[in-house]
């Protein structure tokens, strides 16, 4: 099939960006979206032109590296699918496709579709852990954790840290990202001890980074490639109130 792509090109953080148009004349339905871009880049190389820069690594939907807004939707709007797992069979011959980077003040553009998501690491550094030292911990079975609790923690821990939630939110809020980590650790006995401190520190860090508040648009859940549930934002709010009391 044949597609026309409109791709965001920007040479550096302080440069002007613009959409440029490329033809994709021979796209196979079995290709992934990134393999389709690889082909475009191969052609650009033979023409001696600068290739389209994009982030990617595992290409299995787990590292959270790939980050593209496709036709206005982070990761392209296929349910629970990252860009690298999006396959071309969902497109139709003749489609025009718009490809842009994550857009959020907290994520400056490095080049083209590549952004700096260091803000998410800063949030985790603020308190997204249990303060246990290597060695000197109890046996793994010392504290039984009911299966439903373990499953709940795992649901929250599915987050791949890609930042689609921030990119899709009209307020550029990282509440889903933050809530998932806060919830995972708050329900486990190992994390409960520091729950109050953690929620305060992580929310504070988000605020300092210029990330917005949640006003219940739920775009984050819709764009999350792992289907992380907005119930974790509710849990975040409950943990925050608990910490105030």
């Amino acid at each position, binding site marked *: 099939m044949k597609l026309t792509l409109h791709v965001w090109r920007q*040479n550096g953080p302080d440069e002007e960006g613009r959409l440029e148009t490329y033809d994709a004349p021979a796209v*196979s339905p*079995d290709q*992934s979206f*990134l*393999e389709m871009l*690889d*082909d475009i*880049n*191969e052609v650009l*190389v033979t023409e*001696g032109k600068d*290739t389209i*820069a*994009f982030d990617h*690594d*595992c*290409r*299995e*939907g*787990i*590292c*959270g*590296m790939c980050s593209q807004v496709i036709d206005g939707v982070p990761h392209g709007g296929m349910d*629970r699918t990252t860009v690298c*797992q999006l*396959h071309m069979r969902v497109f139709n011959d003749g489609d025009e496709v718009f490809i842009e980077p994550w857009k959020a003040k907290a994520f400056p553009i*490095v080049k083209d579709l*590549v952004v*700096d*998501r*260091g803000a*998410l*690491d800063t949030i*985790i*550094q603020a308190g997204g*852990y*249990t303060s*246990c*030292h*290597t*060695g000197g*911990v*109890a*046996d*793994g*079975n010392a504290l*039984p*954790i*009911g*299966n439903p609790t*373990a*499953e709940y*923690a*795992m649901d929250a*821990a599915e987050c791949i*840290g890609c930042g689609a939630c921030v990119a899709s939110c009209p307020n550029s809020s990282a509440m889903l990202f933050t809530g998932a980590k806060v919830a*995972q650790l708050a329900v*486990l006995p*190992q994390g409960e001890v520091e729950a109050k401190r953690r929620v305060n520190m992580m929310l504070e860090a988000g605020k300092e980074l210029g990330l917005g508040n949640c006003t219940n648009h739920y775009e984050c859940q819709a764009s999350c490639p792992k289907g992380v549930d907005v119930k974790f934002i509710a849990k975040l709010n409950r943990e925050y109130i608990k910490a105030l009391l």
Partner: protein
Amino acid sequence: MILDGKCPSGPIETSWDRARFENKLVNPSNKRKYKILCVGTGLAGGAAAASLGELGYSVHAFCYQDSARRAHSIAAQGGINAAKNYPNDGDSIYRLFYDTVKGGDFRAREADVWRLAQVSNNIIDQCVAQGVPFARDYAGYLDNRSFGGAQVSRTFYARGQTGQQLLLGAYSALSRQIKAGTVKLFPRREMLDLVVVDGEAKGITVRNLCNGEIESHWGDAVIIASGGYVNVFYLSTNAMGCSVTAQWRAAKKGAYFANPCFTQIHPTCIPQHGEHQSKLTLMSESLRNDGRCWVPKKAENCEKPAGEIAEDDRDYYLERKYPSFGNLAPRDIASRAAKEQCDDERGVGPGKRGVYLDFEDSINRLGEGTIAGRYGNLFEMYEKITDENGYKQPMRIYPAPHYAMGGLWVDYNCMSNIPGLFVLGEANFSVHGANRLGASALMQGLADGYFVIPYTIAGYLAQTKPGAVTTDAPEFKESAESVKGEMDKLLSINGTKSPSALHRKLGSLMWENVGMARSEESLKDALAKIPAIRDEFWSDLKVVGSGEVFNNQLEQAWRLADFLEFAEVLCHDALNREESCGGHFRTEHQTDDGEAMRDDENFCYAAAWEFKGAGNTPELHKEPLKFENVKLAVRSYK
């Protein structure tokens, strides 16, 4: 030269305890004066950096991704082994040790494997304390499953995302230390040189991948935990950025590369779909617990839909050949068996390079719900990629390059032959011998990072003066200049071939000639052709863009330059090892029914290669392996 692995002597059961006691300690108040550089933030590097930071050392950690959380450890699906024996099914430290030595086809060091088995239990405790949400039963206790041919259930798992959860655990510990100020993280940096001063590792040269700057970093010791090198085959289950570069740059500065020919081909991957494919996707081998491998008995049936092939016309080849292990036969054996069926023209799917993995019987026995509960995410992934429903028709799978057992040579302390250079995780060669068992790489990465290096690095540091060598040493400037020179060279060739076109070319040569089966002829052919690809690279490569900004093309080209030198050493190793063992199968050395023939008389050693320049034969150094606790025996899974 005969290499000394510095293994503790005496009874193996107490070897690690004695070694820990005998190791020197660094005075607590001095620790912060020592700076340690850690290249890699995967399970091995992340755990090491966090643990060393906790001890008070000043750690600088580097990774090429934008965040420490994205190292390729994240992609591990199946699980992590430990000798907890929670299920009471006969496991023990000794059994895990025994299985690993035997599974590695007797090409690993016994003492290193013992230590790994011993600390395996601490790893699980540590991860639980970090909040890793391992699977639990209804009573709230940790669940285990049997994995990759083990006859006990010793594998801990977190859905199909064990690597992700363990890495996020290590990443959280690392983040805590970054906050505490003991660790400083340098993401989007590529290590491009090891700086050696007076024969000891004292720093690295890296490129900042965002702005192209070449930076010098000094350290009192350098850790490399950069993962594996199977992207030398181009198509593999590794991430696109995985490379041999960090290891190779150390090798070019004199570090020996051990057993590079021990590469693991994983039996259960999604077959290749076309010419432009960029990578292969692994389907966790836990699927073999409930899936049965088969191909049609007759070649003429291969085009038919699976459902139309009668039961009697199906060849469940693993069950036929290995009745006691069946579909759970170890990876090297299962991969070769799949290849044999396809070479026999009985493969299925596009190009007939595929075999079926069939869940019908399990679904009939347990119900689709149970199977979905166990592997739902894998079936989903399979469908996304192939557009086929694995519940309704058998999956198609084919082997793909997956893991590197070989790596930089290290002694028992995880130190290479260059003093001050430590190598952890998949990047070293130490514990898996010629074949790694499932769920043992995660265990090794975390063992090295959390529980080995914090002890062994002290032995080296205690006898060095902190901060004695800094970036003022002339070696740093020389290194930075040579890296810059290389970059300019890569950008100025201005030929016609893209880095990925040339990588594809190297990869297909390596896969055909040095993949699942190797012969003197195929290896000599590869050795004749690699230099030609290398020449093509240096004369006809085209790297667009500049060195001063983010440039995927330049990164890829640079990594390929190293693969093109390393591939040759891999071939020399495979040619030298005139035996078949583990993942290394030499067609000249097999029994009448096609099983591997090991040669303990002549090859019971680790082969450590010293690089002598591209195109030259590397020099072989041998470390003889002794087996005092597990008797050398033919590894049979019949």
